[in-house]
C-alpha cells in the first residue's frame, strides 16, 4: 500500500523521498524522551517516506492519495513540538509543510499572509525590517513554523499584551484528511460560526494548516522594563494581577530557584515590559502599584537569554532528563498550584531540580511553567511518574492540563477529564473528517 501511495504521489509531481537521510530527519518531534534514544543511536520511529509539498494543492494531493490507500500521515512543521504529536510511530508518510514558505505583508491593513512552513524567527526578522512585528514569540520562535503555531495553539512571551496565536489569527487555509481544501474570506471579524478555530490546537488531527493571515503591529517606539523582587510567590502573583490593569506587553514571575539561575538572587522576581504609546506613564504607575522592591536590570538579563536552551545539550549526554510542564489556573488557585505541583515533582526520586515561573497572564489568571531535571536510574519510568504526579496534582488543585504545549500523546489520557463533554464531540469530528483515521494517528484521542 505505502509503496503504491508513494509512487502515485511522485507521479502527481509532488516531491516525496524514501531516502534514509530524509526518513531519519522526520523520525521524531522534540519530546525529551527521544533524545536519550538518539544518543543510543536508536530511532524513536521512522516514516516510510517524507513528502515535501510546495502548495496547498500539493498537500491536498498527498492527503487524497494517503486517504485512498489508508496510509498514516504525520504532519511536520519544524518538529519542535514537545508532546510527542508528530512522531511517526506507524511509519507511513511524514508530510512536511516547510515548502509552503511565502510571506506577503499588507502594511495598509496591518496583516501578514504566511505559508504554514515559514519559520517564526525569519518571519519576525522580515517584519521588523519593514517596521512591524507579529509579537508572537514562543521560545521556539527560531525553529517553529506558522502552521505549527496554529496546530498547537501556541503562545508567545508577549501573549500577555498581544494575545496567543488564536488572537492573532485573521483567517486560515487548511486541507482536510480527504484532500478537500477549506478557505475563508479574510475579514477583521465576523459573526456566525468561526470554524477555523477547530484547527487551532488540533495538532494535525483534523486537517493540515497550509497558510494563515495574521495581525501585525508597528514596532513599538518605547520599550520599558520593570524588575521587582519579593519574598514569596503570593505577593508577586497579587502584584501581577494588579499590574494587568496597566496592560504590560510581557510579564513573568520567576521563583527563587529560577531567580538564582537567571539573576543570582534567592528572592522571587517579577519582570514586566511596557511598550508603545504611554509606556512611560504606565511604567511609573506600575512602580507605585507594586508591593515588592524595584530592582535594576533583571528584565534585561532575561530578555538577553530568553531563547537560550543550550542547557539541554549540556546535561542530556550525562543521563539527565529535562522537561517543562505548563498549566493555566485562575488567580485564586495560583499559590496552591505552584506549591503543590512543585512539591509533587520534587517528591519523585531522581529529581535534581524543579522550579517554576509564571509566563502568561490574563484578566482571570495565569500560566505556570514548571521546569524539572532528573538523573534517575530509569529515565522512562521517572519521566512517566513526574508527568503523572504533576498533571494530577495540577488538576486536583485547580490547574488545567496544558496552557500551550498541547496534548499530543503525552497528555491524552487526561484530555477527557479536562474537556468533559467536548471530548466525544472531538472524537465525532475526527471520525467525520478523517473516516480512515490517517492523520496523526494516536495523537490526542
Amino acid at each position, binding site marked *: 500500500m505505502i509503496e503504491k501511495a508513494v509512487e502515485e504521489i511522485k507521479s502527481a509531481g509532488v516531491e516525496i523521498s524514501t531516502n534514509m537521510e530524509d526518513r531519519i530527519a522526520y523520525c521524531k518531534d522534540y519530546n525529551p524522551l527521544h533524545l536519550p534514544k538518539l544518543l543510543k543511536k536508536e530511532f524513536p520511529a521512522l516514516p516510510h517516506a517524507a513528502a515535501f509539498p510546495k502548495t496547498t494543492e500539493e498537500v491536498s494531493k498527498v492527503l487524497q492519495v494517503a486517504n485512498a490507500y489508508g496510509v498514516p500521515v504525520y504532519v511536520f512543521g519544524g518538529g519542535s513540538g514537545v508532546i510527542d504529536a508528530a512522531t511517526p510511530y506507524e511509519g507511513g508518510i511524514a508530510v512536511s509543510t516547510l515548502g509552503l514558505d511565502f510571506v506577503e505583508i499588507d502594511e495598509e491593513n496591518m496583516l501578514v499572509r504566511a505559508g504554514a512552513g515559514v519559520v517564526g524567527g525569519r518571519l519576525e526578522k522580515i517584519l521588523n525590517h519593514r517596521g512591524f512585528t507579529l509579537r508572537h514569540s514562543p521560545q521556539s520562535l*527560531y525553529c517553529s513554523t506558522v502552521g505549527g503555531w496554529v496546530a498547537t495553539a501556541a503562545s508567545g512571551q508577549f501573549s500577555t499584551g498581544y494575545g496567543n496565536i488564536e488572537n492573532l489569527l485573521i483567517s486560515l487555509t487548511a486541507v482536510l484528511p480527504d484532500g478537500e481544501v477549506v478557505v475563508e474570506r479574510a475579514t477583521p471579524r465576523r459573526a456566525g460560526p468561526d470554524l477555523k478555530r477547530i484547527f487551532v490546537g488540533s495538532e494535525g488531527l483534523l486537517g493540515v494548516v497550509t497558510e494563515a493571515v495574521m495581525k501585525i503591529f508597528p514596532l513599538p517606539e518605547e520599550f520599558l522594563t520593570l524588575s521587582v523582587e519579593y519574598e514569596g510567590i503570593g505577593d508577586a502573583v497579587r502584584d501581577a494581577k494588579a499590574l494587568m490593569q496597566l496592560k504590560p506587553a510581557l510579564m513573568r514571575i520567576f521563583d527563587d530557584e529560577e531567580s538564582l539561575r537567571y539573576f*543570582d538572587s534567592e528572592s522571587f522576581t517579577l519582570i514586566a515590559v511596557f511598550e508603545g504609546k504611554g509606556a512611560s506613564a504606565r511604567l511609573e504607575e506600575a512602580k507605585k502599584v507594586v508591593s515588592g522592591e524595584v530592582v535594576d536590570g533583571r528584565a534585561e538579563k532575561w530578555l538577553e537569554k530568553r531563547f537560550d536552551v543550550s542547557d539541554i545539550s549540556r546535561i542530556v549526554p550525562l543521563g539527565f532528563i529535562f522537561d517543562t510542564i505548563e498549566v493555566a489556573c485562575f488567580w485564586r488557585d495560583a499559590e496552591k498550584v505552584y506549591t503543590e505541583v512543585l512539591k509533587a515533582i520534587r517528591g519523585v526520586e531522581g529529581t535534581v531540580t524543579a522550579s517554576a515561573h509564571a509566563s502568561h497572564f490574563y484578566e482571570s489568571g495565569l500560566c505556570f511553567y514548571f521546569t524539572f531535571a532528573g538523573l534517575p536510574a530509569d529515565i522512562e519510568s521517572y519521566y512517566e511518574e513526574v508527568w503523572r504526579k504533576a498533571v494530577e496534582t495540577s488538576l486536583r488543585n485547580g490547574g488545567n492540563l496544558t496552557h500551550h504545549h498541547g496534548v499530543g500523546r503525552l497528555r491524552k489520557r487526561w484530555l477527557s477529564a479536562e474537556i468533559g463533554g467536548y471530548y466525544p464531540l472531538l472524537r465525532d469530528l475526527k471520525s467525520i473528517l478523517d473516516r480512515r483515521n490517517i492523520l496523526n494517528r494516536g495523537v490526542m484521542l
Partner: protein
Amino acid sequence: MINPKVISRILANTDLKTKMRLAKVVPKLGKADEVTRCMLCPNMCLHVCPVFDAERRLTVSPSVKARLAYLGETDDAIYHCLPCDACKNACPMDISVNDNLRAFRGGELALKAIEKFEKSIKVQTEEREGRILYFPGCRTFESDLFDTTVEVLEKLGVDFALTNVDCCGMPYYELGLIDKFKEKIAKLRQAASRYEGVISNCPHCVHVMRENGIKAAHILAVLKPVKIGGDVSYHDPCILARKLDVVKEPRKLLAEMGFEVHEPVFSGKDTHCCGYGGVYRYVAPDMAEKVAERRRKHFDYEIVTACPSCKMALKGKDIIELMADVL
C-alpha cells in the same frame, strides 16, 4: 560555571541515590562533543540557515545534519552546508555546524564536487614583483574582477606582486580532502613568505590564509575613497563579516565615496550567505542559485559587496568596480 548556591540547593533537595549518580556525572558536565550537543538542540538556528531556507527540508537543517553525522549517515545531507557560520552566530554554544561536519566528509560526493570545481577554475599566469603579494583567488577570475582590481591597485599606487599560485585550498578543505588541502596551502605559504603580506579580493582566501599562519588582509585594507555618490545597499559577505570581523570598514569607505548605504534585512554580522560560499555550488548548484535568488530579494537598491562570489551570486557590483568606473 555553575553557581555554588545552585549546587547547595541541589544537594539539599536531592535523594541519596541521585546524589551518588550526580557525583559520577558532574565531572563530565560540558564535555560532550559539539556534534552531540548540536544534535540535541531543537534547531535554534533554523531561522538563519540559508541552506535550509532554500531546500525546505529538515534533512539539511543544522541540528539534523549533526544527527545524521552522529548516526553515521554521511552520504549526502552533510555536504549541503555553507561555511557562512550563520548557525554559529546564533548559537549560545558557539557551534559552527559546517566546522563540525567537515570531519565527516571526504566521501564519493566530495570527489565528484572537487572534480567540478577543478574543471571550473581559471589559472593565473601573469607574474610581477612588488612589496605585498596580491593573491586574487580563483573566484576573482571567475567573476572578471582580476583586471579591474589590477587597474585600481595600480592607480592607487599600491606596490603589489603577482605570482603563479592557483588556489588557497579552501574547496578541498571544505570537502574534507585534507591531504590535498595541505598541499595547496603549503604552496601558497611558500609563495607568500617572500612578501610583507598578502591581499586578496576573496574573504575565503584571506580567512584560509590567516588560519594557516599567512599574514593576509582583505583588499579593502588598501583601498582609498574616490567621490562618486548615490544610493546603494551593501551586502556583507558572510566570511568577511563573521570570520574576518570586517563590518564597519566597507560602510565607512562607501560613505566616504559619497554613497548613502541602505541596510537590507540580514546585515552586518547577521548577514545572509549569497549561496556561492564554500563548495555548495558544486554539491547542489540549483539550490545555491535558489539561495542567491532569495538573497537578491532582500535588497531595495543596487547591491554592492566586497567579495567575488557574492558579486556573481547577487549580480551586484564589487566596491573595486565602483572605483574603477571613476579612477
